């Protein structure tokens, strides 16, 4: 009986093979083509910039533009300004958005739709309108400070930060966690710090990644407000030495990518540590 079943099984399987794998193969090819096109779309400009940054004025391969980077005037200051703005913006954004989004989810869920609309506005409003509005509304002492840019960046980061936190909160049974914490004696701050923030770690890190990337790459606002951040310095310096400027842009890209990888790997290593700890105990 067993051999009959086996024969039938083999007999039916063999002729079916070309028909069953054909569509799958087509799907795999289609997927590969899309990946190739998307990869080319992103990688060709990067390759072109890298190629250009490794050339001298005669178009020959040279490391001179890279070697010249440390001695360029104003680069250090621009880098330091961008770094400070990234830190201040991230801290401000998280301090403002984390409690706000939690509050809306917990106490005013009817406002979630309104929040989605409000947080999308910075993408819809043209940067020139935003910066002119902020400049007009700001007091003089703030106008003269580069940190005014951080306030603008907080607004610009809102669409990304809100969506990250919203997704994180939707994955939690927020009401029950808060009530469980409160019934055990925790106040609001304690609940936020000990229960909610640790459980939103991935969402907060992802929001941080997006905020940092936004600040390090933002050109329009800084340029309109006349502050020389890294992107502004790169554009300004490209008029003096395009090869060095492009080399700095490439290094900036790599540095940003490394920073973001570091932030993401922090989250992963934390999760791995938790898993290992639970396995050991």
């Amino acid at each position: 009986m067993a051999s009959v079943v086996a024969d039938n099984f083999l007999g039916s399987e063999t002729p079916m093979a070309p028909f069953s794998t054909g569509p799958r193969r087509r799907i795999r090819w289609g997927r590969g083509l899309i990946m190739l096109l998307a990869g080319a779309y992103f990688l060709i400009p990067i390759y072109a910039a890298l190629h250009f940054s490794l050339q001298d004025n005669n178009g020959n391969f040279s490391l001179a533009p890279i070697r010249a980077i440390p001695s360029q005037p104003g680069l250090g200051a621009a880098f330091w300004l961008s770094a400070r703005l990234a830190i201040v913006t991230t801290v401000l954004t998280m301090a403002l958005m984390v409690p706000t989004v939690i509050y809306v989810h917990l106490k005013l869920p009817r406002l979630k739709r309104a929040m989605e609309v409000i947080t999308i506005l910075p993408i819809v409003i043209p940067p020139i309108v935003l910066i002119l509005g902020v400049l007009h509304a700001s007091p003089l002492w703030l106008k003269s400070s580069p940190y005014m840019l951080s306030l603008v960046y907080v607004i610009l980061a809102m669409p990304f930060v809100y969506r990250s936190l919203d997704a994180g909160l939707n994955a939690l049974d927020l009401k029950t966690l808060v009530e469980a914490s409160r019934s055990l004696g925790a106040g609001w701050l304690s609940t936020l710090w000990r229960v909610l923030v640790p459980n939103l770690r991935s969402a907060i890190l992802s929001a941080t990644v997006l905020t940092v990337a936004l600040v390090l790459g933002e050109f329009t606002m800084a340029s309109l407000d006349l502050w020389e951040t890294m992107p502004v310095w790169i554009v300004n310096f490209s008029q003096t030495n395009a090869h060095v400027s492009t080399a700095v842009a490439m290094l900036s890209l790599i540095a940003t990518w490394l920073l973001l990888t570091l932030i993401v790997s922090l989250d992963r290593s934390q999760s791995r540590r938790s898993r290992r700890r639970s396995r050991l105990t």
Partner: protein
Amino acid sequence: MMLETHQTTPSPLAPPSSGAPVVLDGLVRHFGSTKALDGFSLDIAPGEFVALLGPSGCGKTTALRVLAGFEHVDAGRVIVDGAEVSSVAAQRRDMGMVFQSYSLFPNMSARDNVAFGLQLRHQRASQRRARAGELLELVGLSVHAGKYPHQLSGGQQQRVALARALAIEPRVLLLDEPLSALDAKVRAELRDQIRSLQQRLAITTVFVTHDQEEALSMADRVCVMSHGRAEQVATPSALYAQPSTAFVAEFVGVSSRVQVTRARDGVELFGRTVRIRGDVASIPGGALDALLRPEDVEVRNAPDGPGFVTHISFLGATTRLEIGIGGATVKADVRSSDADAFELGTRVVVSVSARDVLVTERRPGR
């Protein structure tokens, strides 16, 4: 309205304990135009286990949340251990709560979850660890102390949640349908565990459920709720045997509703006069119904009998027969060993003793 009125039975189990007495006095709570609590009152003795039982929307969870401090009341008072706590924040009420949905903190191990409340009370790490270990031992989960919630089954998570609620030595333990998400076998095990722990610790406990079997098997007293009010508060046996309203009679256990007519000394049921307790004249309205428990109905084979079997369900030790008689359907339980005598269409005679007949106004629309 029923002939028998049995509003409140004192608790038979009110041991001297560390549990706090609780008084819910005339609680009123509106949600928009809906009245979730409509003058709800309940006295709970120290160390007593009271179940709030009722259908969805009857206000039982709202009552528990008011007691926990998660909902405010529009009127009424919550008194715990002699002190009014109506305006005290939830975190200051010292009440442990186990929720319907799994409420363990996902970022903490079972041990850390149990120790969370102790940490908030500034206990030393070594004390917290020891206490958490004791409580996990108590719920039989010490081997899983280092596991995270996602590594535990639903039943294990609820046991950790119970240990966490008990860790803070609460004045009152609140259980909000903690078994409803579990499968039947785990539910039965956890039910026994909760009850034995509660008796051991003599902690005042309020348990919300819509499952009458849970309420009747676990609680010292059961409060049946309907439309934001307590319909009846009584021991499980009193509630079952002497329901004070038609709602309680129909909600607790299984009942058949049969039309009856007024007679001189009782009511006319299945063609003969049955005497009932109390005065039939005191029941308002013209038409009356009798409510019969299946186990109180006796069935005999009779070729000329007025009834006939319309449905047979095997329930294990007993078999439930549905009998069509005089336009009504009456449920009757017989021993499964005797059930062979009945088939679909078998003609039968139905009888019920007078003490088992509950008479009420006829339900509108019948």
